[in-house]
């Protein structure tokens, strides 16, 4: 990475489908330049200071808008914000000028130890105030708006007092951030915690939603029950596509990302999924128009 002064100019992400950029696909993507609306990267994969990741990203940045999606900031932890982590993100954001920068409504560290997972917050006033404050700190450091994503969860805390959708909406309303609505996570939580996923959609206003995520999950059967795990390792299922159609009807077309992290298939599979999302947006939008 060279100096930020030689960086890129802003390039807005259209309300179209995009895919996650993974190192296994670097050469294929650079050679074929697929017709996607944008690429999303995991910010931490570019925390290294040089080498191939930055060469590929710089090449693609000239032709595509980017979204930076973080998994390691631990926004909801009671530890102080990790200054080194936010400062490195700021360098990357200043240089690459991504149109969207997002993180998760979760926590992953305590007393300096990291659990490297997206652990759920309790949905309480205290947690809401805490995370609003943290989001504002990050926005002040980065000098820009960020988006926060609703996470999948496999448990609910007995002392939560606020429905998840209200918590997510309130974080955005109070901090000025946007919402990255993960439709697969809504579906996973609806099954795991037994609520109607449409209630979640109805609880969020369209102006707050700046991006949508779609991914595949895994069904785990236990002798005493079933639970869905957010694994990002397979095709988006029919129920999630159906919920996505409802989301597009409610929120209008939004930048929509196909996420795939484990057992990565060849690029064409991701592009087919993105194409499905694109077609849904165009079909529903044409009906409205």
């Amino acid at each position, binding site marked *: 990475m060279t100096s930020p002064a030689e960086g890129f100019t802003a390039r807005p992400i259209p309300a179209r489908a995009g895919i996650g950029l993974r190192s296994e696909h670097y050469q294929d993507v650079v050679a074929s330049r697929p017709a996607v609306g944008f690429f999303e990267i995991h910010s931490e*994969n570019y925390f290294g200071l040089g080498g191939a990741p930055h060469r590929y990203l710089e090449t693609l940045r000239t032709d595509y808008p980017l979204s930076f999606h*973080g998994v390691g900031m631990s926004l909801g932890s*009671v530890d102080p914000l990790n200054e080194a*982590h936010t400062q490195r993100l700021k360098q990357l954001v200043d240089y690459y000028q991504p149109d969207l920068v997002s993180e998760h409504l979760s926590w992953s560290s305590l007393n300096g130890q*990291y659990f490297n997972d997206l652990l759920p917050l309790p949905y309480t006033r205290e947690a809401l105030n805490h995370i609003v404050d943290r989001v504002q700190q990050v926005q002040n450091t980065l000098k820009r708006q960020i988006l926060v994503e609703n996470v999948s969860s496999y448990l609910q805390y007995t*002392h939560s007092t606020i429905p998840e959708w209200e918590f997510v909406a309130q974080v955005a309303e109070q901090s000025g951030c946007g919402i990255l609505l993960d439709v697969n996570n809504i579906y996973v939580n609806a099954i795991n915690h037994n609520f109607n996923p449409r209630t979640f959609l109805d609880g969020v206003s369209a102006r707050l939603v700046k991006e949508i995520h779609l991914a595949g999950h895994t069904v785990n059967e236990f002798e005493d*029950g079933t*639970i869905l795990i957010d694994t990002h390792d397979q095709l988006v299922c029919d129920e999630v596509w159906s919920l996505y159609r409802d989301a597009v009807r409610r929120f209008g077309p939004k930048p929509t990302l196909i996420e795939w992290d484990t057992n990565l298939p060849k690029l064409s599979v991701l592009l087919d999924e993105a194409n499905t999302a694109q077609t849904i947006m165009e079909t529903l939008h044409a009906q409205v128009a």
Partner: protein
Amino acid sequence: MPRLRELQQAFGSWLQFDDASEIAALVCANGLAGNRRVQIYRNNLLVTLTDALRAVYPVVEKLVGDGFFRFAANEFIHHYPSRHGNLHLFGHEFAKFLSEFAAAKGHAYLPDVARLEWAQHEVYHAVDHAPLAPQSLTAIDPDRYESLCFTLHPARRLLYSPYPVVRIWEVNQPDFDGDQTVDLSASGNCVLVLRINGAIELHTLARPEYRFLATISEGKTLGQAVEAALEQHRDFDLNHYLAKHVQNGTLVEFNLA
């Protein structure tokens, strides 16, 4: 109602010390027992961190097999917890851990293979640096050469092993289809790990050449580096090795001590 800090401490105790006494009581059963639900998070964490180690140490994994690797990873994660939100920084103590891991004592070369793989991981992500213009050295008075201090490219690592680690690494690559036999009594390796156009390469160095670069990397002068090389072999050809490592981009800067 537990405070956010108390909740996170209870969750952390479970993930770190296997103590579910507090967290299970804070979780709704709702069809699936609370301890089953928190168990999912422990499993996920173990899988995430094990996969992060797998990504950096594929040859170690191949050498010991999947079962042993998972066992070793489990122990490692317990003794060397993650300290960063960036998973690429996790696992640098794996070689040290393996050297102390009783169950791996039968594979004395494993820690060195791990060191070699971590060196490649670091080199892959290291900062870029422009090469040294060859003519820049001609401006220096030859009488002052011996007090030159060179800097190695940030994407370079030097490593010595008493085992033939380069051969071990090569025969365990996915696309290797030759004779897999490794003679462990063969002489050890002096290795330069380097990045050329983004790709990682392993170069085996002669012993004096290795001492030469290692001495430079300690911040010593060219004169001291030559002295160290001559201790290994009295015919050390400075001009040859200096030109070679300027050309391959290993020596990228110099100043006069």
